[in-house]
């Protein structure tokens, strides 16, 4: 019974994911899920290793370009193209991570930003491959036996891969590896004194994070049919960090919630571009002030308080047992 109850949130989440393209534009629904995955990859580093990457656009963008090129030049099924994007970003994360994890705090953020700018300029100059300022358009999406012309069709076809990304992120956080990451975040010298080569764990986390961002970026390019320079722009990195912070650092699912808000807001304000900056800014200020630990953590605690009578009764009983056992 309790086991069934524990599975309930996942069942609801999958039901919502399936119903989403009927509640809003399928393109927007897809973007939300992909930005959510992208922000989760940022949260994996920020929330669980304590490293703020300000250069994740490099992995999102490279994933997009790699997937677009794979799909355009070879015509592989979209799932393969998306995995090519993930692999390319994970690969790029090896040297970037190797150099960046030597720094912490603001210096880590600056180094990752610098690397992302480097990728941006390379993409800008290397016109033969990336299309320079024009980007790559008309990216095909195919899968044997499926018609993926309509956005809603692609949404459902891509959903398993997206869910796979979420599951992987969740698994990483709730694994023996995740425990070591939290230990490193809390107290790196102590972890070293226990014999952990902490830099290897940080590098692996960086590469996994880059791969997840690449998967999200690759699917984004395939879903929207293009890869362009602004995917690599530093404001894209900033937006991912913003979504993570709004949703709640170190919560993983908060990133998804943050993506809903940021993308819905952006969508609602497209008709009034001159007001968009002010309104978005105001909404963010309110959220940050009202939900200091992010939407997810605050919301979850409120829910628990709501269910408090039941829970606290249970605690009373168990503590009574402990006391009884000791005396």
């Amino acid at each position: 019974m309790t086991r069934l109850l524990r599975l309930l949130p996942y069942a609801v989440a999958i039901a919502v994911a399936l119903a989403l393209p009927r509640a809003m534009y399928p393109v927007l629904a897809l973007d939300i899920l992909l930005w959510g995955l992208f922000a989760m990859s940022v949260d994996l580093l920020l929330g669980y290793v304590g490293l703020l990457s300000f250069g994740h656009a490099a992995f999102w963008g490279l994933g997009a370009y790699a997937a677009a090129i794979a799909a355009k030049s070879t015509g592989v099924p979209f799932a393969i193209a998306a995995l090519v994007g993930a692999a390319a970003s994970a690969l790029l994360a090896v040297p970037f991570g190797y150099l960046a994890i030597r720094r912490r705090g603001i210096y880590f953020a600056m180094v990752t930003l610098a690397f992302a700018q480097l990728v941006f300029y390379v993409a800008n100059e290397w016109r033969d491959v990336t299309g320079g300022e024009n980007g790559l358009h008309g990216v095909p999406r195919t899968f044997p036996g499926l018609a993926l012309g309509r956005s809603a069709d692609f949404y459902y076809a891509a959903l398993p891969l997206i869910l796979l990304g979420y599951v992987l992120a969740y698994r990483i956080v709730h694994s023996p590896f995740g425990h070591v990451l939290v230990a490193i975040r809390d107290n790196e010298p102590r972890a070293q004194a226990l014999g952990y080569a902490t830099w290897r764990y940080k590098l692996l986390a960086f590469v996994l994070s880059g791969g997840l961002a690449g998967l999200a970026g690759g699917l984004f390019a395939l879903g929207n049919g293009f890869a362009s320079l602004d995917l690599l722009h530093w404001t894209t990195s900033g937006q991912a960090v913003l979504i993570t912070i709004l949703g709640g650092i170190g919560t993983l699912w908060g990133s998804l919630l943050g993506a809903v808000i940021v993308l819905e807001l952006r969508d609602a304000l497209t008709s009034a571009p001159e007001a968009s900056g002010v309104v978005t800014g105001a909404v963010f200020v309110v959220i940050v002030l009202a939900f200091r630990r992010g939407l997810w953590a605050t919301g979850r605690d409120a829910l628990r308080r709501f269910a408090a009578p039941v829970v606290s009764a249970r605690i009373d009983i168990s503590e009574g047992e402990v006391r009884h056992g000791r005396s």
Partner: protein
Amino acid sequence: MSVAPTTYAVETDGLVKEFAGFRAVNGVDLRLEPGKVHALVGPNGAGKTTLFNLLTGFLRPTAGRVIILGADTTGLPPERIARRGVARSFQITSLFDQLTALEHAELALQAASTVGYRFWASEGALERYRNRSRELLAEVGLADLASRPAGKLPYGQKRALELALAIALDPRLLLLDEPTAGMGVEDIRRTIDLIRKAHAGRTVVLVEHNMGVVAELADQVIVLQQGRVIAQGGYAVVREDPAVVAAYLGQAHA
């Protein structure tokens, strides 16, 4: 009499550590025999903790060599030295605030394996460490607090957990930086017993200000002052040493 040991637990040659021209450790030659309890004592700023950090790889020496358990470890990173069988505790309580006491013990126990790299495995992979973890916590008196995050443990329990972490590694050399700092009489009593128990089959080096603890535990006392060893020997001998008396009196007058 007994044959002189061929391998020292800790050996240093002309060890020097300079910070911006200041010599915190100034030419220390140690020969610490295995299987004993060695106490590093000396006034504040004598270089005890710096010496600890040099032995465990948290600092690189400016000059000199460090040989631990027969192998040259000069310049190796902390985790490599730890993996050679060296565990240390920290002067300022140093734990993982968000992790529970049980998770601490598990982390220490799994450190020797590669299970920590398994990002694809569930937390169930740590199950096989659970029994030993509970035993360890029981040994240091934390059995009832196993599921409490370390950040929320009372001070004395934090120190006990710190000791449990060091013991969990089953080290050959155990370095304890002020294990009884800030403790009440009762906790000190318990810590002494714990160190005695942990000492079985191991070499222990401890930095300690409490002379009662030193007198009770140490086979060998090494007195540091201004980065140099000014005396060493049994507690009773060292206590009478004129240089030591002068150093401590000088400290008292300062």
